[in-house]
């Protein structure tokens, strides 16, 4: 009887995690086109949502391998239980929402890994975690990703500004639509699958699905819809950080940064050296800020982002560990876990209402449209129709 409840909870939380993954990562693809005015904010998130939806149906390779590595399984290892997955998901969701509230573009994959690691450490001890895999697969790439993308972005920004003249550079806006769409599609094929993998893993652990099989069709559909809905809701705070706060982006820079992001992500997924999309995208924006003469990078913001990356795994891990500890008290522990998680989600949501950031933040007046100057105090309304 218990297993029903737990699996249902895991599926629900996994889908919610997928949703937060979507709105956390809208910024990777769409922050620069929104910042330069290449796409209107609502149009940009709609394109990203559709491409994520389509992308989710294109591949299930990542989902099939999600449980491999990192957590030792099989002989001499441990069996990850649905309860530990539940605790890990709570850690990932809470951390994703906290970083969203602070406008930090942190990696959703790292939050998920962190949460699961924390839960597994409490459930099975440190021996269950393969430390060398953690360093090789997560920590070193986390340093290399932004540096690589930043350098490439710096280089291509120089090329773009070297070739074109000032009056031609508005043309880059058209190009931005294509490059950012590519990033969105690539994101959809990767990220929705992490959730599919988690749900499938749980179904297998519960004994409802054969070991070694891929995600069921309803799982694929549900994950695709969840990530698309999340993407469409737009993580406006993070879009603001990447698009506005790091550096002021011109269309040529936007195009250069997106080209660098796309190239780095595609090369890394196809040459077997996985890099985080979020870190690549942030690195690209910093690189293009350094690359344009007269542009300045706000290194304080960049530093905050880097700090966010650094603590993502431990922080999500800590929440996951606490959740796993509480879940250790049996059914009532699990119920308490979920209640606490929902309370945390609500609290973060209510806190976010205090300083609202939404698509209106990015309103760019159409060029040529007359902007009415502010009326001075005491000035008479002469000749003005109502």
């Amino acid at each position, binding site marked *: 009887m218990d297993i029903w409840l737990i699996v249902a909870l895991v599926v629900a939380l996994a889908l919610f995690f997928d949703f937060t993954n979507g709105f956390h990562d809208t910024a990777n693809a769409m922050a620069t086109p929104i910042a330069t005015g290449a796409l209107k904010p609502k149009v940009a998130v709609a394109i990203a949502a559709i491409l994520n939806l389509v992308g989710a149906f*294109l591949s299930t390779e990542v989902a099939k391998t999600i449980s491999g590595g990192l957590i030792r399984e099989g002989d001499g290892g441990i069996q990850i239980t649905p309860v530990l997955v539940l605790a890990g998901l709570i850690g990932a969701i809470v951390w994703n929402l906290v970083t969203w509230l602070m406008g930090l573009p942190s990696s959703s994959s790292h939050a998920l890994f962190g949460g699961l690691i924390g839960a597994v450490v409490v459930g099975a001890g440190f021996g269950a975690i393969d430390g060398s895999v953690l360093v090789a697969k997560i920590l070193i790439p986390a340093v290399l990703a932004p540096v690589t993308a930043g350098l490439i972005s710096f280089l291509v920004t120089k090329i773009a500004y070297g070739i*074109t003249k000032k009056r*031609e550079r508005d043309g880059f806006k058209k190009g931005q639509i*294509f490059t950012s769409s590519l990033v969105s*599609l690539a994101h959809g094929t990767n990220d929705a699958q992490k959730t599919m993998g988690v749900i499938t893993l749980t179904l297998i652990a519960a004994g409802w699905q054969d070991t070694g099989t891929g995600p069921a069709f309803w799982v694929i559909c549900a994950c695709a819809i969840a990530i698309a809905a999340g993407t469409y809701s737009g993580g406006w705070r993070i879009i603001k950080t990447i698009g506005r706060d790091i550096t002021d982006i011109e269309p040529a820079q936007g195009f250069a940064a997106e080209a660098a992001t796309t190239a*780095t992500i595609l090369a*890394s997924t196809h040459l*077997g*050296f996985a890099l985080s999309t979020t870190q690549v995208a942030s690195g690209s924006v910093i690189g293009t800020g350094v690359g344009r003469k007269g542009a300045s990078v706000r290194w304080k913001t960049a530093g905050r982002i880097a700090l966010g990356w650094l603590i993502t795994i431990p922080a999500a891990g800590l929440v996951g560990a606490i959740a796993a500890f509480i879940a250790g008290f049996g059914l009532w522990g699990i119920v308490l876990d979920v209640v606490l998680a929902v309370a945390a989600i609500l609290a973060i949501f209510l806190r976010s209402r205090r300083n609202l950031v939404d698509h209106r933040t990015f309103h760019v007046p159409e060029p040529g449209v007359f902007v009415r100057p502010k009326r001075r105090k005491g000035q008479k309304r002469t000749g003005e129709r109502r």
Partner: protein
Amino acid sequence: MINWWSFAEVVIASVVSAGLLVTLFSTALRVGDGDARWRRPLSVALYVLCGLVVAFGIYLIVPALHAFGT
């Protein structure tokens, strides 16, 4: 543990492809700016090349296009 060679491959591939895309698009913009008759067709041709680079990107993203049989 770290496969530095595959990392180097990633860097080289990214630099070449991003550099190619940006060079093509920038040149297309540069060439398209002016009245001479030869400019327009050349500019369009460069945009088409950009389109091919993007199409290659889609080809890489969609597994059904390149991963059949595996």
